[in-house]
């Protein structure tokens, strides 16, 4: 198999503003994650149970078809996620691109981002923070549609009664993340 000069191609594409979506995959204790970024910041995190090919097609449709595998563009995100999964980082400091969300969902997701490490909120609190305390169900939907899970920690949002609620990556992963952060006992 010929070695293609992919790294240099991605660098030149970035220099010429042609790299609209850079992506890579990275390993986590829960399986492989897909990371995708625009020049503005991290735009999508795909969880292990989600089909990476489908996510890329979705990005090509909703952001730009100029989608390239470009691991170097995601070095910072990968490094922070590695530290987080090692329990050595409690706050992500990554630029984010929110373009896949808008309106009430975006307000909920931005509020989720501010929930501190190791703490939890419930869906009612998130609805209130987003400016509509009666839109509890919509707040739940907004959590479920979080395009940047883990970094935007929707796993910290639980049911009001204390139940785990749902998680796009499956409940074992939600439980695992809460154990990692010391919210739940292992």
């Amino acid at each position, binding site marked *: 198999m010929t070695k293609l000069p992919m790294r240099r*191609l991605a660098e030149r594409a970035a220099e010429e503003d042609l790299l609209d979506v850079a992506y890579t995959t990275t390993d986590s204790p829960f399986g492989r994650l897909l990371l995708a970024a625009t020049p503005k910041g991290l735009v999508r995190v795909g969880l292990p149970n989600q089909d990476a090919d489908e996510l890329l097609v979705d990005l*090509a449709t909703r952001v730009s*078809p100029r*989608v390239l595998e470009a691991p170097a563009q995601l070095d910072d995100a990968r490094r922070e996620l590695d530290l987080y999964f090692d329990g050595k980082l409690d706050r992500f400091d990554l630029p984010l691109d929110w373009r896949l969300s808008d309106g009430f969902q975006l307000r909920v997701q931005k509020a989720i981002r501010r929930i501190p490490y190791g703490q939890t909120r419930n869906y009612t609190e998130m609805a209130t923070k987003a400016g509509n305390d009666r839109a509890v169900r919509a707040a739940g939907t907004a959590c479920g549609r979080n395009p940047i899970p883990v970094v935007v920690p929707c796993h910290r949002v639980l049911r009001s009664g204390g139940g785990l609620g749902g998680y796009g990556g499956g409940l074992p992963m939600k439980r695992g993340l809460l154990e990692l952060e010391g919210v739940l006992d292992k």
Partner: protein
Amino acid sequence: MPPFQLLIDEHGNEVMAVLRGAVGRDGADDCFQDTFLSALRAYPKLRDAGNLRGWLLTIAHRKAIDHHRARGRAPLPVAEVTETAVEDPDPDDGVWALVGTLPPKQRAAVTLRYASDLPHAEIAAALGCSPEAARRSLHEGLKRLRKELR
């Protein structure tokens, strides 16, 4: 449009093989990047995703021609092939080195036909000539190769 990376995954190796045939190993990496950068630039406005392979090979062909023009049509340094072992030996190297010495149209016709397996009509489209002229270039190129290889 599918994610651009899919085009590279599906056709990257073939584009590289064609470029190696057309410009040799040394120039192929640059031509490969130039090819996919041009494609990436035009991609969002592309109307027809029907023949992405032919489209890429056409761009690759143009980049190979640009490459030769930039070098003033200098002959490829094939005379310097040594008998010592080289990295990554390729059994076809000898033939492709000879292909590299053909005049541009013949060289392009031969690489598009045999490295990319394109039919005459697509070679003609890539070269911007009639299918008949493409067939002639291919024929002349093969004749010359046979003579050289004898």
